[in-house]
């Protein structure tokens, strides 16, 4: 565009042109955001390909991760470890998280106290994973070691609590994981509870229900889809949590069902082995990473869809 034409162009035209360029910028950025996920998946897939071609799906049903046997890798124990540690973390965090969400959405105590709890939960989400790991080593491992022996003694006949009890174990990792996913459950559940229309509560009170009869009978059932979504999303978080788990779980390559034994998760396997890996092992670890990514994506897609449903059904009640 030359100076001559520009001076003759009506001002709205010129602005219109700039607006289009800027719009293009935002469009490109949006496309890049969408492409990010595809790029992540594709680049990991490419690097993992040698292992995928070599091991196929047998990778997920084999128990083998030894440097002395570099032709043979399988992640079954880590797959089981990921599932069990995440499930137990949820089992612990779900009731607590929902109770806190209720606490934050009801007026049991004065707002300053409520805000303190809210701030604490937000801070729990903000503390870096590696610090949870250090804290777990200093605090949780000794506790689990002390209570692990008696638990194994009393309940050792169950495979879940078979001794000998180690401090760095599935249980330790699950306890710390529970703490780490608590903020996710609390935040989403609280949003779901707060969104329950006031008329429902008023109606419940009007027919003479107590506060907790209202909570259990009306609020929780109405908010249930949101709480389910919170649980699913928290499960996704727990599956992918890396550093704290790698520092606490023991990184044992053996398949175990006992919560008191050292175990491993897909994420902790990568964190623990990738730095010293070479050749096929690098590729095998990237295969594990690809699988972990697919699993978490799947869980998150389901979680997001449930969450959308929940929000829609709640707004339908209004």
């Amino acid at each position: 565009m030359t100076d001559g034409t520009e001076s003759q162009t009506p001002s709205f035209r010129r602005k219109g042109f700039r607006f289009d360029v800027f719009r293009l910028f935002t469009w490109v950025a949006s496309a890049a955001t969408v492409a990010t996920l595809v790029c992540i998946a594709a680049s990991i897939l490419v690097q993992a390909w040698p292992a995928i071609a070599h091991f196929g799906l047998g990778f997920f049903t084999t128990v083998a991760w030894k440097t002395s046997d570099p032709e043979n890798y399988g992640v079954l124990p880590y797959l089981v470890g990921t599932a069990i540690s995440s499930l137990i973390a949820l089992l612990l965090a779900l009731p607590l998280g929902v109770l806190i969400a209720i606490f934050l959405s009801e007026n049991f105590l004065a707002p300053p106290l409520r805000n303190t709890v809210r701030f604490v939960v937000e801070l729990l989400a903000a503390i870096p994973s590696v610090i949870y790991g250090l804290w777990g080593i200093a605090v949780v491992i000794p506790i689990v070691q002390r209570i692990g022996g008696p638990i194994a003694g009393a309940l050792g006949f169950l495979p879940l609590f078979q001794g000998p009890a180690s401090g760095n174990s599935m249980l330790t990792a699950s306890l710390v994981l529970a703490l780490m996913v608590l903020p996710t459950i609390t935040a989403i559940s609280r949003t779901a509870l707060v969104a329950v229309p006031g008329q429902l509560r008023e109606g419940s009170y009007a027919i003479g229900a107590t506060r907790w009869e209202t909570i259990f009978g009306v609020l929780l059932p109405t908010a249930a889809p949101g709480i389910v979504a919170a649980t699913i999303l928290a499960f996704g978080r727990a599956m992918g949590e890396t550093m704290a788990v790698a520092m606490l779980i023991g990184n044992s390559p053996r398949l175990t069902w006992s919560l008191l034994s050292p175990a491993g998760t897909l994420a902790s396997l990568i964190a623990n082995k990738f730095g010293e890996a070479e050749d096929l092992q690098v590729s095998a670890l990237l295969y594990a990473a690809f699988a972990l990514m697919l699993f978490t994506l799947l869980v998150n897609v389901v979680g997001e869809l449930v969450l959308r449903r929940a929000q829609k059904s709640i707004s339908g009640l209004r």
Partner: protein
Amino acid sequence: MSTAVFNQNLAPELKAQTFRDRLRLGRNFFWTAICVGSSFLTLIPLFSIIFLVVSNGIGLLTPSVFFELPPAPGQEGGGLGNAIQGTALMVGIAILIAAPLGILSAIYISEYDKRSMLAGAVRFIAKLLTGIPSIICGMFAFATIVVSTHTKSSIAGGVALAVLALPTILLTAEQALLGVPHALREASYGMGATKFQTIFRVVLPEAVPAIMTGLMLAVARAAGETAPVLFTATSSAYWLSSLMEPTQSLAELIYRFGKYPYPHLIQLAWTASLVLVVLVTLTNVTAQLVFGKRKRR
């Protein structure tokens, strides 16, 4: 709205006349106690973490700790200088990549084609990206940048952290833009402003505090992440001299030094934790203040 109604205790005063009613009241009280009790239970681990980090980390927290290189095993003194430098650089690179991308995307999905397929995809992918394990971000940067440049570097670490920061920045920016009252836009158009002018002169200035909050939260999160930089930037004993060399970060230092048998290095890991926790707490408090102010307005 419903929130306001929700916060008033409208539960009727129940007169306990029958045994059944007394039981109901008792049950009501029981659950209140459980609920309040378990809420305050969460304070215990947080206080425990903060207490340990402060009591173990404060000993070495002197001004010189910020400006010296980490000690080698067996050496006394030293500091976190190059770790702070490396973390700052990598978080800077991450924000430099993620902020334009995130904010521009947010503008597209909240100001231009709100209902387009692309906007829907951006929102959904951003939500999914928040759920991607941080170690996957590291694997991504490894598979692309480390593999092609043959070296661990702050660029690779920065890219890994950018993937992590992008959804936080994007989603908070979207919320910030949606929070700008529609009347302001109408007024702007009414005065003959173009869409571009409206966005830049009216909407963005109004949304800046909230967008900044998102940026700060992203900075705090990225600064503390270990998994993305563990295999992409690794560690270094020196000050930075190039963008394409292994780079030390605070988080990696905590992880590595925490495992050593040398008490001085372990203590330094706690000091690094203290630095990170203070950073994280400060950003969260500031974010609350900024948000609080907005809400009050």
